């Protein structure tokens, strides 16, 4: 069988926070355009896995390879650039700058990439439109509902046309209806643009939006076929 080369591969990741081990040899593959759910109980190492895969944290052992490049070989500045241009991140809350309007928040990654302000705002407006929050574009995060803020955060993660979006409990702070809107918006956009999504969640109904699920337990991936 000739499987395509994965876009993102992690092998044997270990990472400890102080004396508490968070990852103990986790391995994951993410293919182009695939939506992968990583599930597991609280403290199973989900967030740490995402941080390692997105190059936010360097693992103690093991390696992460993105598009043929080993993240460990890249200096911090290049990692930061990679996260800005090829990756998008969405957290449970708090990733929007509280002082900026929704429109400026979404325009920010484009500004950082050197896009002209007017053009960045125009593009940002289009993305807010796609996520149904165009009407809230002049509000600041504190003035929006949780669902609107998360859809704005999604627009911000996707505005640069990334190849991978990392979403850490993106609906964790939302009620089920707002969560459904956020997930539908994420899945549709990702499918249309062929963006791969790594979705961290403890909620099976959210994980069901993915193509595939990987379960973490005690910092390692639970094998698919559990045999007696």
């Amino acid at each position, binding site marked *: 069988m000739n499987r395509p080369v994965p876009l993102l591969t992690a092998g044997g990741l270990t990472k400890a926070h102080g004396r508490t081990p968070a990852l103990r040899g986790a391995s994951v593959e993410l293919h182009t355009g695939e939506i992968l759910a990583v599930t597991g109980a609280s403290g199973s190492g989900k967030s740490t896995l995402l941080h390692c895969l997105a190059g*936010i944290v360097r693992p103690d052992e093991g390696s992460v390879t993105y598009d043929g490049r080993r993240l460990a070989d890249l200096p911090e500045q290049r990692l930061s650039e990679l996260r800005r241009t090829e990756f998008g991140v969405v957290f449970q809350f708090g990733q929007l700058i509280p002082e900026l309007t929704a429109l400026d928040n979404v325009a920010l990654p484009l500004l950082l990439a050197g896009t002209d302000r007017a053009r960045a705002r125009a593009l940002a407006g289009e993305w807010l439109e796609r996520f149904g929050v165009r009407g809230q574009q002049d509000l600041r995060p504190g003035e929006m509902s949780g669902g609107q803020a998360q859809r704005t955060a999604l627009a911000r993660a996707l505005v640069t046309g990334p190849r991978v979006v990392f979403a850490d409990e993106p609906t964790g702070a939302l009620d089920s209806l707002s969560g459904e809107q956020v997930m539908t918006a994420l899945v549709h956009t990702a499918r249309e643009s062929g963006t791969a999504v790594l979705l961290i969640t403890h909620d099976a109904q959210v994980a069901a939006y993915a193509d595939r699920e990987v379960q973490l337990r005690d910092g390692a991936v639970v094998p698919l076929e559990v045999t007696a």
Partner: protein
Amino acid sequence: MNSLRSDLRLAWELTRGSDRGEWWRVALTVTGAALATGFALAAVALASLRGGHQVPVAAGLLDEPGTRSGVIVGLLLLLVPVLGFLGQCARIGAVHRDRRLAGLRLAGATPWQVRRIAALETGLACLLGSAVATVLSVLLLLRQWDRPTALAWVGIALVAVAVPVLGAVAGALALRRVVASPLGWVRRIGPGSGRGPGLLFLAGVLLVAVLALLTVVTTSTAAPDRPNGRVPLTVMGVVLVVGAGAVWLSGATAKATGRVLAPRARSAATLIAAERLREDPWSAARTHAAVLLVTVVGTGFLGIRQVLSDVVHSTRHLAEPASYYTTGLDLTGAAIAIAFAITLSGLAVGTAESLATRRRGLAAQAAAGVPHTVLGRALLLETALPLAPAMLLSGLGGMTIGTGYAVLSGRPAPWAIALVPVAVYAACLLAAATSLPLLRRSVRPGELRYA
């Protein structure tokens, strides 16, 4: 009495169980309170003297009532930057402390209890600082002065008690809103108006000014052959007007800078800085008010100093030896330098604090790939942008004092002092830059884990 003891124990437990930021706040508050007590004690001890005396320090400057009142005013003016510094210290960990006290309120504490616990927390730190400073000052005083008068002792006792009491009152007042709405503060979104501490600071400045004026009026019994209280009074008036203007101006320019720049910003750093200023201009005003006051005084003083030393060195017949005058000038210069140093530390503490409270958001920005350099630049711009126009005005105010004095004395205007505001501006940026290493630590991914 019993409830006070339980409050006291609770205040102690809360302080003991708190994180490093809180200990920083306590340590800095103790330092600030000690400084305030020291300056106030010196002023009180000097003010207790009546008529001529032989004071063995400062080249005879303290012998005469007229010059002595000048020194007292100088000491009291030093209280202004100390107050500013204490204000900054109160901000360290303010968000966490507010949440904690709001939590107490939700757990069923009455508003009065919460206020009392907060007052005790601040008051205890001030009491420690005041006690240390009082003991040291009294030891020093006894070596210089065989038998201090009863008046001096009363004054010392008053100051030693007043500092912690005032600290406690300020601590309780700063909490008005927490006490009123515990829920709003527990799930706080976005900054409040932040005007409370600014108003407290202004009230403190006014109190010091009134005290200084009283000192001038009561201790300088105008001798016919010497300038009476009129000149220092006028100078102080100008300083106060310009200073108060600077406080207002700093806030207003911060707001205006934000409003003008935000729509036009081309880079991410400018955009972030401008929007932050537009959202919360008064935190900048608070931080910068003391800087501007010091600039006015410093610029004006350097002008006056140049003219005076010119006079001293060119005039043959002086009432006192030249060292009498130069010591006076040097003492004033030292006082202003101390004030400047305190102010700069206040600025650095303020910047560090603003970073610490935003660290989760900053970590999220860094995770999203916003480069550290952009975050650092935005941080510096937040200080640099609003300070520039305000610095210009206070520099002009100082120049007016300095050159005005020179013109009145028929001397050439000391243009070189125009460099002072520039130097102060540079020093402020450096002080703000001291928190850049903290930025690097603040954006650790560890901050992304759920609080």
